[in-house]
């Protein structure tokens, strides 16, 4: 197992090198060094000499591959530098933005897992009946509604009309969970359609297997079959789909956070888009890649925990 992890981490470093190459290329494509110099120099019309000085100071006169090496090592050391828009330290801001995002995403993630698995199991139990037919159709309807509508309608219905949750905003500390509930609920409901339908397919695939027939011949009830046999075998495909959700645990929900004024990484990114702040975007891209890779590695390791047949070589 340890050798497997080490091998994956080494491969991950290779991947991250290419990711930093991608950000390097995009960074240069987004603005030339002269533009960056002009933006950073406080003077209104900097002289060519001032620009040259600034470029030298910041190492933009070195050969390209040298610049790339510097760029890459900066990223690997997680030195993201300062924001293009307002000059604040990116890493610091990430530090303050991470806890709210983590809180919201964790509640949404586990809530969604609970709700979608339960609904999918229920639909699988009633397979072939009109509950199954209408349930699946409802899932298709729900996954055809754009997430924006869920957010807007969610805030309107639950915040304004029914006044269950605070409309927006965030206060750190004990009270934080209250502000996070509405975005979490919206996130869960918005993601229901596609996921429930997918999990239903996983469960139905398992229900047609031979071992289920054996269990039935033993006299096991349908509910017990679903919970104690099918669920465990469907765990691997379910885990695979949840792997994709792990990056959002760290990066936050872009739309949800900005709409509900949660000061997390999602709204940080949203502000960066609005102000065309490429330095922040670059940092988030790299961070996103790291979390994705770690996420997939953790998921692969978790396979061994649920299915004894899986061997990681």
């Amino acid at each position: 197992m340890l050798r497997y992890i080490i091998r994956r981490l080494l491969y991950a470093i290779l991947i991250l090198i290419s990711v930093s190459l991608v950000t390097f290329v995009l960074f240069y494509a987004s603005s030339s060094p002269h533009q960056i110099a002009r933006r950073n120099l406080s003077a209104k019309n900097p002289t060519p000499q001032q620009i040259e000085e600034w470029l030298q100071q910041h190492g933009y006169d070195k050969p390209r591959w040298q610049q790339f090496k510097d760029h890459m090592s900066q990223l690997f050391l997680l030195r993201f530098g300062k924001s293009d828009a307002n000059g604040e330290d990116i890493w610091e801001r990430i530090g303050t933005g991470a806890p709210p995002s983590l809180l919201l995403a964790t509640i949404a993630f586990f809530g969604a897992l609970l709700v979608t698995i339960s609904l999918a199991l229920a639909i699988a139990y009633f397979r072939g009946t009109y509950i199954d037919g209408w349930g699946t159709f409802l899932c298709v309807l729900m996954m055809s509604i754009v997430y924006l509508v869920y957010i807007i309608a969610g805030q309107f219905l639950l915040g304004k009309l029914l006044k269950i949750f605070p409309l927006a905003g965030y206060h750190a500390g004990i009270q934080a969970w209250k502000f996070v509930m509405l975005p979490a609920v919206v996130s869960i409901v918005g993601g229901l359609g596609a996921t429930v339908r997918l999990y239903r397919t996983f469960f139905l695939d398992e229900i047609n297997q031979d071992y289920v027939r054996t269990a039935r011949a033993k006299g096991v009830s349908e509910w017990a079959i679903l919970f104690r046999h099918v669920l465990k075998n469907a765990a691997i495909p379910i885990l695979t789909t949840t792997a994709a959700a792990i990056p959002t645990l760290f990066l936050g929900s872009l739309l949800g956070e900005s709409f509900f004024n949660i000061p997390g990484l999602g709204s940080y990114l949203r502000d960066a888009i609005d102000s065309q702040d490429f330095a922040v975007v670059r940092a988030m891209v790299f961070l996103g890649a790291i979390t994705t890779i770690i996420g997939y590695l953790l998921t692969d390791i978790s396979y061994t925990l649920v299915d004894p047949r899986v061997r990681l070589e």
Partner: protein
Amino acid sequence: MRSIPACGVPNVVQPLLQVEDLRTYFSALHGIARAVDGVSFALEQGETLALVGESGCGKSMTALSILQLVPEPAGYIDGGRILFEGKDLLDLTWSQMRQVRGNDIAMIFQEPMTSLNGTRTIGWQLVEAMEVHGKASGNVAQQRALDLLARVRLEQPALVLRQYPHELSGGMRQRVLIAMALANEPKLLIADEPTTALDVTIQAQILDLMRDLQHELGMSILLITHDLGIVAKMARHVAVMYAGQIVEYAPTLQLFQQPCHPYTRGLFASLPSRHRRGVDLATLEGVIPQATHWPPACRFEPRCPSRWGTCRTITPRMLEQTPGRTVRCHLYDPTIADRPGLDTSWHHGQDSGKTVGQRPQTEANP
């Protein structure tokens, strides 16, 4: 057909299982597939009945129908009665039927490789069989599981308890499945081609095991197979199925000595024999028709070498030939006027009525 009324008649034993006119159909794209179309047989206590036939004749579906495990939603039991110890199983509610499964009637299937849950230990699955019916739990169940594994002659049963199915070979898994089926000491064991997926050497071991366990427990076995050798070894009575119906029923020894129905005779004739060398293997011509379109009268007629005009127009009845033997064929129906003489020279000038060479070892002829 053996239907002996039990009430009011002393010294007559009610059959453990009595199937009457069972009909199991499937709704398919092009109509209704009549997989089991009027099957009737009885099974005594402590006895083994073999259900023999080609693939597609409906024998597996008959077995599944008894436990009402017919694949839904396409399949359904159209009618008939399945009397187990006198009670009609088809009248039971779903939860009542659940009490029967794995408890009074147990079933083992053909594919040991996939019939066990790969994510649970053997011990867990054995204990589940007992816990589901409230027979035992906890440590008691664990101990019983251990005993069961020892009974099916698995070495190192304590180790096997903790193992997962993928760590066992096919033969070992089939033993585990047998152990699971016997966990609650069922009165009837339905075995659907239990050895087809196994090596020949393992086959013999499993069959011996089953026979010994049957003697120990006094349990009945309904054995589904296409292998006549297994039939000879295991069964006291045989029912031959074709196209969803039973075409012949007889004690094994009698069937082997003198098969009546042309289909049965074809089955025996197609067995390779060391006495017929240098000659092409005999086969039954044609293929079994589709279950959605059975031939209107005799279903074997298109392939029967003894057919004649009436076979296409009048449906043959199941008639008792001698006590304990029934055949569904016009050749043995005295009421059919124009039947020709019994065909005794079927294949390659061979005397078809007798088996050549040694008599096979059967239940009735140890």
